[in-house]
Every structure is written in C-alpha cells, then in structure tokens.
C-alpha cells in the first residue's frame, strides 16, 4: 500500500533552484544543498538551474524512483507561484502530492537582501525548517466540488458587456448587473474612439442591445450586489434592485411619459451629459439606452416631494400626467420599493470600471472657478451630435465658439500629491479631442504634455496626423490657469503659464477654453466592492490581480475574476482583450465542471475533545457542530475553509488542521532557529 510506504522512515529529497541568477546571484546554492545534505532523513540534496523547467521536474520524478524518496522539498520561489507545479511533479513521480513542501528563497530572500552570506544563511535556515516539517507530512486527498455553470458579471460597461456576451455565446447563463439605469458605462459617453475615430456609439450600441436581448443573459440594470457568500463554484449572491418606479415588464420603451411630465422644460442636471444638459424627473439617459426603460428620479419628481417632517406630500402641482400618458400599459408604479434577490452562481467577473479624477482637486487649473475650464469628459459630450448642444462646440455662455483651446495633460495623473500613476489613455484621448475640436471650430489648439505616450497600434501614427494638422504640442506641465492679463491680447482670456521645456523658456498663452485631461482612478466605492468579493487592492486602489503577468484577470479568491479598468487604467482594446480573457477563464472553469479544493481543512480528535464548545462560535462558516450524544464537537468538512482559527484556540489541543498540524509548525519554528 502507498500509505505504508509513506509512513516508513522519511527519505527526503531536497532541491535548491538557482532561478538563473535570481537566486544564485545572492544565495550560494551549492552551500545550501551541502548543508541540507547533512541533515537527518535527507537522502539526497541537489542544486539545479531551473527547477520549474521540464528537466527540473523530471529530475524530481527520476530521483523519487532511483532513491526511494518519500518526501520532497524544493527551495525556489514563492509557493503562491509554483507550489502547484511541484506538487504535480511529485504526484507524477508516484507520491501523494502533499508529501511536498516549498521554501521561498527568492521573494523572501535573494530579492530582498544585499549580503550574500546573510542571504545564504537565511536560505539554509528556511530549508532546514522545511526538512523538519515535511517529515511530519501525511498523505491527503483533495476534495472535488461541482461548479454551478451560471456566471455573475458585475458592471456593464464595455468590459462587462463583452465578458457577458462571450460567456453567453458559449451557451452558458450569465447574470449581468449594472447599477445605473442603462448599461454602456463610460464608453457610451464618448464621441469618437482613438485612433480610428470611429464613433463610439456606432460600435457600442449594437453590442448593448445584443446583450440586452441575449437569451442567455439576464440583465439586471439599476441594481447592486450587496452580499456574497460561498466559494468557487457555489456562490450565493444577494442583489439589490433599486426602485426605478417603472414596471420593467410592462414598459415598452415608447417614452410617451417623458414629454407628458408636468415639467414642460427639462430642468435637472443630466448625469449622462456630465451636467451640461438638462433632463426631466422621468427620463431615459440617452436614446440608445439599454434596457429601453425609463426611470423616475425620486429626488426631483414632485410625486416624491417630502414635507418638513419627512413625510411624503403629494404636491397638487403633480397631475400624474406621466401615468395618464402611459395609459393602459400601466407601467408607472410609484409604490415600488427596494427589493432583494438571491441568486446562485459558480463564478463572478468584477468589471466595475473607473471614475475620472475630480478636477477641483487641482485648484491651480481653475476648474469650477472659471466657466470655460472643462473636463475632457464634458468635451466628449460637447462634440457629440447627440450631446446637449447637438455637437456644436459652444462655451458656457451658450453661444461663442472658442478660437483657441489649451488641453492640459496629466491632470490628476503622474502626480504624487494626487494620483501617482500614468492613466494611459489621456495622451491619446487628448489628441482625439484636439482633432475633434479643430474639426468643429478650427480653433488654435495647444496640447501641454509631460511626455506623449502612444504605445498602441496606430497610436504613434495618430500623433503624426495631429502634428500635420497643425495642433501645437508644448512640452511642459502647466503651472497655472488664471484670468488676469499682462498684455492687451490677454484681456478677457484664460491665461496658461507654462515652461516650454523644449524651448527652455516660460510662456504665457491666452486661450478661450481650457480642457483638463483628467486621469482615471478607482471608483470611490472600490474598497467596499473589494471587501464584498474578498479581493485585494493595490496601493493605488485598483483591484489586484493574482499575478501581474501570468494571472492578470484572476484574483486571490478562486472563481472571482476582474476585467477592464477596475484593475487599472486601460483603453478600449485592452479592456476588451481582458474581458475576453476573463470570459475564457470562466468558461474553462465551468467546462471542467469541478474544482479541487486544498485539503487544509480541520478535524477534531474525538477522544481528546473535552466538549467545551469554545470552538463553535469561532467558526465564521458554522462548520463546527456539537454532537449532544457523544458530548463532542465535530467539523463538517464540506463547510470548513481551512483557516485554522478553531485549531489555534482549542484549549485541549484536540483540533488538527491538515497541512498545518501543530507538529509541522513546531518543527518549522525549530528549523528556522536551529541554524546558526
């Protein structure tokens, strides 16, 4: 029996990896191998250039056979990277994969230390700990868990839509949740896309309506995820359906109610147009909105007017003309309230996007102080034919066209005082807006940049095109935008003061309009969303991928993936590529049909349990139960997630965690301290 073989005296094989020079450059690998070779139970000890390579893995397999090894330790990189690889190699060599332990001497040693002797000593100590530990390892079986084939996609911008469509096209069910009344996200607000200048709506809206109509997609707009329970393959998700005061089934999207509203002229700031346009209390964000269902804004609708004591007072000014216009469709329902719905899914893709930097945080550029300082997103709406001015670029006075425009790059990007990162898209969208503004107004356009970054297909060529069009490019981060004049030509203008760093002199440039190329930053509730889905955020606040290169759409929680700008600033092509990648990961998971769970669960030694029950309230998964007949506690393995909290606090020491048994950890402690 395998079990017997493995319970024999430990025969440990040890391997230390050079990782090229990544480890060997700072750790004397031969010396580590030599030292470990002298330890008890070690039958062979080797150093090798790349243990994770095929020959490296084969080496382990051959040695298991040749030397009768029953335990293997590899000292190389982080177990989070290659533990899986080496367990596989050990298994192929005929051993239970859990007779393996990995020592991290790269991320935790060679990369973070500068003294070769110290780093080598540390590697020896860590290896010695693993040798002590692995002797206590036991054969374990992994548990298979079935995967629910339905997927939840959170956020329906271009990333979420593309992910949902890809999964749905493969014949799998998707629930697509969007918190706004319409899907489409930021992309729906853009006029054109760079560098091809094709119209954003023309390429996005067909995708939006296809997603809305897809037989495998259940679209929940104006909804938010409020709770996530469970684990990979079996998540239980609670979704809040916010009241839009419209029966979604009954509304046919005729929009007859909108002009019927008692507000004869639209008077409330229109979010979709960045507040440049106005809407009524009953509205549809934009003509191609998906779903084609109106919404009623209770903050401004007279029907929801609150009295001084907070009670609803139905104003007699509201004639319910919208209800009248709706007629026997009877879709308007002022009594709607928040509803909660629970769904079950196997995988989740988070595609919650970004928000743009708040330009008032950079007061020297005068946004909010001077009328004609705009954000880039406002200009997107201003040049858009379906925007608030029908595509006429006029300034806030409503009539004059700008004759000169200054576009300031890197507002809220590359600035340690606000956001330190490069937002990746601003150079390109600034050039796009420069082109569009020139096309619409023939104004003199000045771009103020720190560096022009055009790393994309056709991007550098687009820069060339702009130069040919006569757009000015001035290398210098603008010092300030003010409205005081030094010369007659500056009277009544906004004056940009900047060092033209290439000319090596300070310039004052008067313009009619200033556009701030605001950067991309995490959504303001990113931290809440992160907690909801048990993800991590990088220091800048974007969601953290499992590995920056090899697992860019995975998170540290299995079954939860990220796509698009919630992971970091990116343009549309990259967002779509990442959305496709996330969909592929989900499909791979669903298609396999099951996941293997790490067998690091806990169990109770019945004989030793004193029945004190102190472990029971500690378990966040209610996996510990109490058997009244035997007066002992027991653990439901299916519910246990393997944190070990109960183990650490059992007064009688009668709970054991697989892979983290007390004896294993004590040996590790002894090991790290034994070496001198």
């Amino acid at each position, binding site marked *: 029996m395998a079990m017997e073989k493995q319970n024999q005296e430990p025969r440990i094989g040890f391997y230390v990896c050079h990782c090229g020079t990544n480890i060997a450059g700072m750790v004397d690998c031969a010396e580590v191998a030599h030292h470990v070779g002298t330890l008890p139970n070690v039958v062979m000890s080797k150093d090798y250039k790349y243990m994770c390579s095929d020959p490296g893995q084969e080496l382990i397999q051959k040695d298991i056979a040749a030397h009768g090894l029953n335990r293997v330790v590899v000292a190389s990189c982080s177990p989070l990277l290659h533990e899986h690889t080496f367990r596989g190699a050990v298994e192929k060599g005929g051993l239970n994969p859990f007779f393996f332990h990995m020592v991290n001497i790269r991320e935790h040693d060679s990369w973070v230390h500068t003294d070769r002797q110290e780093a080598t000593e540390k590697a020896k100590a860590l290896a010695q700990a693993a040798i002590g530990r692995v002797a206590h390892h036991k054969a374990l079986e992994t548990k298979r868990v079935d995967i629910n084939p339905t997927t939840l996609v959170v956020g329906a911008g271009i990333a979420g839509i593309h992910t949902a469509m890809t999964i749905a096209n493969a014949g799998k069910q998707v629930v697509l949740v969007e918190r706004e009344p319409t899907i489409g996200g930021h992309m729906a607000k853009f006029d054109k896309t760079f560098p091809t200048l094709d119209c954003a709506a023309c390429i996005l809206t067909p995708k939006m309506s296809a997603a809305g109509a897809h037989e495998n997609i259940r679209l929940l707009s104006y909804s938010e995820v409020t709770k996530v329970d469970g684990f990979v393959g079996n998540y239980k998700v609670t979704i809040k359906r916010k009241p839009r005061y419209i029966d979604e089934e009954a509304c046919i999207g005729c929009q007859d109610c909108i002009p019927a509203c008692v507000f004869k002229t639209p008077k409330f700031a229109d979010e979709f147009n960045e507040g440049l346009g106005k809407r009524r209390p009953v509205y549809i964000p934009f003509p191609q909105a998906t779903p084609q269902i109106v919404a009623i804004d209770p903050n401004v609708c007279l029907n929801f007017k609150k009295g001084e004591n907070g009670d609803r007072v139905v104003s007699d000014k509201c004639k319910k003309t919208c209800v009248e216009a709706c007629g026997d469709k009877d879709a308007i329902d002022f009594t709607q309230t928040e509803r909660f719905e629970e769904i079950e899914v196997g995988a989740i893709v988070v595609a919650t996007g970004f928000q743009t930097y708040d330009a008032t945080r950079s007061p*020297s550029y005068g946004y909010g102080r001077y009328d004609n300082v705009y954000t880039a997103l406002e200009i997107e709406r201003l040049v858009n034919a379906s925007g608030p001015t029908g595509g006429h670029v006029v300034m806030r006075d409503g009539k004059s066209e700008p004759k000169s425009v200054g576009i300031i790059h*890197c507002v809220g990007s*590359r*600035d*340690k*005082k606000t956001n330190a990162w490069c937002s990746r898209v601003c150079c390109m969208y600034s050039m796009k807006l420069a082109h569009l503004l020139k096309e619409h107004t023939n104004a003199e356009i000045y771009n103020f940049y*720190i*560096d022009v970054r055009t790393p994309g297909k056709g991007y550098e060529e687009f820069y060339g095109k702009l130069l040919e069009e006569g757009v000015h490019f001035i*290398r*210098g*981060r*603008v*010092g*300030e935008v003010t409205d005081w004049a030094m010369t007659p030509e500056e009277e009544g203008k906004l004056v940009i*003061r*900047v*060092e*033209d*760093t290439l000319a*090596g*002199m*300070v310039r004052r440039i008067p313009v009619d309009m200033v556009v701030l190329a605001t950067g991309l930053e995490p959504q303001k509730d990113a931290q809440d969303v992160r907690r909801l889905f048990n993800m991590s955020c990088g220091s800048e606040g974007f969601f953290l991928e499992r590995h920056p290169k090899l697992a860019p759409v995975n998170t540290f929680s299995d079954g939860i993936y990220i796509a698009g700008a919630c992971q970091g600033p990116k343009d549309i092509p990259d967002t779509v590529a990442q959305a496709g990648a996330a969909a592929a990961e989900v499909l791979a998971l669903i298609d396999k049909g099951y996941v293997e769970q790490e067998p690091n669960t806990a169990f109770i030694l019945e004989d030793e349990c004193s029945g004190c029950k102190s472990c029971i309230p500690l378990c966040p998964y209610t996996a510990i139960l109490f058997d009244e007949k035997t007066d002992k506690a027991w653990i439901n393995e299916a519910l246990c997630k393997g944190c070990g909290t109960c183990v650490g606090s059992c007064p009688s020491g009668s709970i054991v965690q697989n892979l983290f048994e007390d004896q294993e950890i004590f040996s590790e402690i002894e090991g790290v301290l034994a070496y001198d």
Partner: protein
Amino acid sequence: MEIKRTIKYQADRVRGFGREVMSVPGCEKLKDCIQCGTCSGVCPLSIYMDFTPRQVMALTREDFKNEVLASHTIWLCASCYACTVECPREIRITDIMYELKQRAIHEGVYPKRFPIPVLAQEFTTMVRQHGRVSEGLLVTKLYLKTNPIAALGMAKLGMGLMKTGRFSLKQENIKQRADLARIVATVDNESVKA
C-alpha cells in the same frame, strides 16, 4: 556675429556633485525629477533666470556644478515655495536652492557685487553678533557694499521711513549674546567632525 560653442564634455562635470547634493536633508527627492517644468511654470521669477529652475535640477543631477553654482537662478529664488508645493514628484526645490546657495557662498563663486548673497551674509553676521536684525542698518550696509550709487536712489524711501518711524540705524541686541556664540560654535564644531 559672435558665435559660441556650447557642447558639454563629460570632463566638464564635477563627478559626484549631484549625489552629494541629493544626500543633504530635504534634497533627496531630486532623484525623482521628470523634468516636467511645473517649477518654472509657477515660479514668479523664472522669467529673469539664466537657467529655469527645471534646468537647475537637470544640471545638478548631471553633476554640472560650475554652471549651477555660478547661475543667477539660485539667487533669484525668493523662497515663495510655489514650486515645492506644486511639484508632482514632491521635490523640495526651494530647499535645493538653499543648499546650492550655501555651496556657492562656501566656494565663493557667487556673482560679485550681486546684492543678494551679500545681503544673506551681512544678515547672518548681524544675527550671529547681535541676535537680532536691525533692518535700517542692514540695508544701509548692503548698499554701501554693493552699489553705493543706488543707495542715493533709495534715500527718498529711507527718509520716508524715518518720517513714519520705521527707520533706525540703532543696533538691536539680545542679552545672551554669549549663548548665541556658543550655539554657533557648537554647530561649527559638529560640522567639522562630520
């Protein structure tokens, strides 16, 4: 037409100068400069400088000690801190200017008869000796040392100040001048040790 050759050879540098400056408290972040020009853009005096503040950062980092210490730029800095506050890399440019001024004075390379370094030195001498600055006396000394003719032009201002009771040639003194001298001597002593 007079032409001037401006090429710089590696030998024109004073190797290690940049590193030295960057090791001084407050000057470390010069390493992070991305040459965006915000400092020059917000500097109210950059328009009078021979090198813009941004160029001073570049020259310092690249070891062009002679060029930097001889430049007018460091003496034109009025310590308004606009650059320090606006710099996207959080470089304390004003403090770097102070450091460069100190070095220029130490090496005696500042422009002669240029009133600003003279003022700085007269000021410190007065503080060291008396503990307080007597503005009238200080300004008078300054003009006599740098530009006696301009002093005549300032006479009207001086008269006005005297009339409004704001001008005096009396030297203010603190009581514990000996303490002051000992503090200064201790700092000197420590600097020599370092």
